[in-house]
């Protein structure tokens, strides 16, 4: 059992996992794209512009989920000072920022043909912009503060403060009048998206989650090599 958490064992499994995801990724991507762009029907109201949903919604979910994970790990890290957690949050943050920005950009591209505008300052969209600002602050804290311990502390606090924004984003469409429509898929699992459109949405989510896993595994591997190199003489 102890052998499982042996670093060389972990390294071995990371390599295997990376190869495995690489081998299935393009097939899955092709299937998801076929469903999203060809096989799924257009919407009764929005026509083919509804296909933007298949990249917009998973991006927004991943952006939100990443920050939630970062904030929860930051809380644990703040209390118990586990250095590994800072390394994890540090590598998730750029991915989360990327997907938050993608959600905003694709949302803008979706808004123009359907709502009739690229941009409005309604509660949902504004709170998403606030989320991206928190991501940027978090990353800047690591970039600008030279002292490692202080950088971790600052970024932890930023993430914990940003956590308050997450429920605001989630419930913004229920609490206030917004141009953005309410959630289609509720927390209790009910959905107002027809199955023929839910399938490509879930496939695309799977593909993008696998992509995130791939990037994080590669970053983790890089980190292990970096640490090993530092004490190569002492191995």
């Amino acid at each position: 059992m102890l052998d499982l958490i042996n670093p060389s064992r972990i390294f071995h499994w990371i390599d295997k996992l990376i190869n495995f995801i690489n081998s299935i990724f393009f097939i899955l991507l092709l299937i998801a794209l076929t469903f999203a762009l060809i096989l799924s029907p257009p919407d009764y109201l929005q026509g083919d512009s509804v296909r933007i949903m298949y990249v917009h919604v998973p991006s927004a979910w991943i952006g939100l989920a990443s920050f939630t994970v970062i904030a929860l790990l930051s809380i644990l890290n703040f209390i118990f000072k586990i250095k590994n957690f800072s390394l994890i949050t540090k590598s998730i943050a750029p991915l989360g920022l990327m997907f938050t920005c993608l959600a905003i950009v694709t949302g803008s591209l979706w808004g123009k043909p359907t709502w009739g505008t690229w941009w409005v300052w309604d509660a949902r969209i504004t709170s998403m912009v606030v989320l991206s600002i928190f991501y940027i602050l978090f990353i800047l804290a690591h970039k600008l503060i030279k002292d490692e311990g202080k950088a971790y502390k600052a970024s932890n606090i930023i993430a914990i403060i940003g956590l308050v924004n997450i429920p605001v984003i989630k419930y913004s469409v229920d609490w206030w009048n917004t141009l953005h429509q309410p959630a289609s898929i509720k927390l209790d699992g009910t959905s107002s998206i027809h199955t023929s459109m839910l399938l490509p949405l879930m496939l695309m989510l799977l593909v993008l989650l696998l992509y995130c896993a791939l990037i994080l595994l590669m970053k983790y591997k890089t980190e292990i090599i970096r640490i090993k190199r530092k004490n190569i003489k002492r191995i």
Partner: protein
Amino acid sequence: MLTKKVKKRVSFLSLLLIFLVIAVFFILKSLTSNILYFKSPTDIQLSQDIISKKKIRVGGMVKKDSININNQEIEFIITDLKNEIFVSYSGTVPNLFLEGKGVVAEGILKDKNFFIADRILAKHDEKYMPPELTDLMKKDVK
């Protein structure tokens, strides 16, 4: 089991979070009128001294059979099923501007029942389905 340091950090964090939640709650509460992207016809009926030169947004549903187009002028009624407001607008409308669907109009209020819009945005709902399905549903209704 928990050391004194850990306990201290936990209490600091819980205090910080409670403080933050309360602060954010009050900030959002006091900003509500700014956060609301649009007012409903009922909001306008209930409010006092709303008629001014300031731009506001009114939102709701486009009333069935209320769209009237002559030349460039489009007239329609926004309803929230309790109150209604008459809107006049000249210009192009988004594709999703349809009877029975959501709409947000930006412009100036003439009086509580008459609104002059200079921008129309469409607001769609959270339901997504293929066109064949709505045809079936319409048949069912008939």
